[in-house]
């Protein structure tokens, strides 16, 4: 398996109220294509920061993050935007769909920013929604969808651009156990088709259900890496 993500010596420092705050202190992690890696840790451990840096939404203070062969630390804002558009798919705890747009429009959004022609765009968005089991909900707005359905739309949006890595920040955090399970099995089945995932969670059961590897971060450093239940 080749490497999708290579994180080396990653640190991230914030300044909070004049005091420097070390959120990540030297993280090394590599994720292979086709792998599901879960990052666990208490809140404030730095797991979301790791996810955001890999997703190009945040920048490392030092260290390197190489995704699909390119180093994020060397990119300017414009290049990072292109990187997010092409190589990353984000799934958030609170879904983060745009309320005024239909499911299809929401899924089309990454393609719209990359300038894809409309007919191709709508076809790909429809296919992506079909793949998450929402082929019958294309023209529904987020408010007309259940939480589980909204998260499926978000997953469709994250996968529509065929990203190198899909990042999910507590993807089941806002869902009941049953719906959460459905989302997790969707992730597993997408993984079976070759998608790579980096997922944060504080729920050990979630990690056990999907992860190939479980990385536990404590105080900004990796405490341990275990093989997940699925391996």
């Amino acid at each position, binding site marked *: 398996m080749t490497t999708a993500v290579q994180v080396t010596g990653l640190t991230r420092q914030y300044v909070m109220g004049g005091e420097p705050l070390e959120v990540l202190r030297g993280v090394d992690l590599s994720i292979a294509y086709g792998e599901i890696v879960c990052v666990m840790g208490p809140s404030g451990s730095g797991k979301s920061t790791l996810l*955001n840096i890999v*997703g190009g*939404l*945040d920048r490392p203070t030092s260290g390197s993050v190489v995704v699909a062969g390119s180093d994020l630390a060397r990119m300017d*804002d*414009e290049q990072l*935007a*292109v990187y*997010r*558009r*092409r190589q*990353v798919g*984000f799934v*958030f705890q609170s879904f*983060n*769909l*745009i309320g*005024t*747009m239909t499911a299809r429009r929401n899924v089309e*959004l*990454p393609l*719209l*920013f*990359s*300038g894809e*022609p*409309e007919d191709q765009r709508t076809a790909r968005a429809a296919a992506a929604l079909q793949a998450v089991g929402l082929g019958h909900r294309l023209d529904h707005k987020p408010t007309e969808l259940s939480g589980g359905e909204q998260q499926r739309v978000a997953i469709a*949006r994250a996968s529509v*651009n065929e990203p190198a890595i899909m990042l999910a920040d507590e993807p089941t955090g806002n869902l009941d156990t049953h719906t959460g399970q459905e989302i997790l099995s969707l992730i597993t089945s997408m993984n079976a088709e070759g998608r790579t995932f980096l997922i944060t969670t504080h729920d050990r059961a979630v990690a056990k259900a999907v992860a190939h590897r479980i990385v536990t971060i404590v105080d900004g450093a990796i405490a341990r890496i275990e093989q997940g239940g699925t391996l």
Partner: protein
Amino acid sequence: MRFRDLAFLVVSNLRRMKLRLALTSLGVVIGTSAIVLMVSLGIGLQANLTTSLGDLGAATHITVMPGGMETGMPDEGQLTDAALERFETIEHVEAVMPMTYVMSAQGARYKRYESYMNIMGVPMDAFEAFGYELESGRLPRTDSEVLLGAAVPTSFAAGDSATQAGPSGRLKLDLLGKRLDLTLMMWPSEEEMQKDPMAQGTERKQRLTVVGILAPTDMQTDQTAYVTLDAAHAMNGATRRTTAYENVVVKADSTRNVTAIEDEISGQGFFTFSSQSMLKELNTVFLIIQGVLGALGAIAMLVAALGIANTMTMSIYERTREIGIMKAVGASNRQIKRVFLGEAAIIGVLGGIGGLTFSWAGAALANLFVQSLIASQAGSSGGVMPETSAFFQIPVWLALFAIVFASGIGLLAGVLPAVRAANLDPLTALRHE
């Protein structure tokens, strides 16, 4: 991002805030209308005044008067025959006509009617060369004949009410072939005044036969009666032919050449006047008036721009999370900026179109009102309806300018909010509730 998609995004964003869009655009409507109406009023006033200025004298005519204290000039600024001959040699001069004002004229009487018209002495051959057309009769040949301007027959009034002569239009006498009795007041000369400081003027009567009436031209000519130069000299009591004229009119072959001829003549030490030079000065004045009126509109527009900036800032604040989402899925700063600039520009465009529509309607209404006002006043005084063009005039360039300007203002007002939106940190934006 394709332009079509950008447009779609912009329009669908604006559809979400219809009321706010309407209110903000209304600000631009008011600003645009203020500018357009103010400037169009300026244009209208100028056009009207320029039209009525034509009444002061034909556009190709230059009135030349003796110069002041200029020394070293030929003729010392006196309008001698030699000076006149020089004028004739200036390029683009078509004709030159000296004029002598009959200062002694006190009034003319026909039966029980009286009039106080101007009387001018002119060489009749030059008069013809100036292209004045006769409505009836012929040009005077002897010193006891007179040619009347088109408005003179209407300037007569009966007996005591004759104190204010003017083209009242109430009475039009058929004067061709009739005799007018002129009253001339002969003022004592300087020599006589030295002998007797209490010397009084003496009244003299002169009878003139009307041999022709001019077709209407400019206001000045219409209200003047013309006699031969010799007759004018005689009426003024001059014992011999004077060597210099008080007034010379020079006719240019086209209005384009008036200024050049005028410059040449005033360069020879004479005072000149033409409706063209008057127009030039008036244009400067109107430029200032338009500037001031436009500035008032600009203030209204500035307020509208602040309104747009405010609306955009508010809506960007409300959509912070959405901006975060768009950034997370790959929108670049530039793309975000374009979306919001587009929204601001559309507010401007809509306001501009609205403002222009409002201005057109407003101008049409105002013109209708002013014209009916003039018509009713003219009607009540029994006069003829004066010819006025529209007071508010919106030429095509002004309409185009209004739209472009309003869009530009929208765009400009959107810059700061859009840049702010573009530079939002995606993580902070995503956390925004």
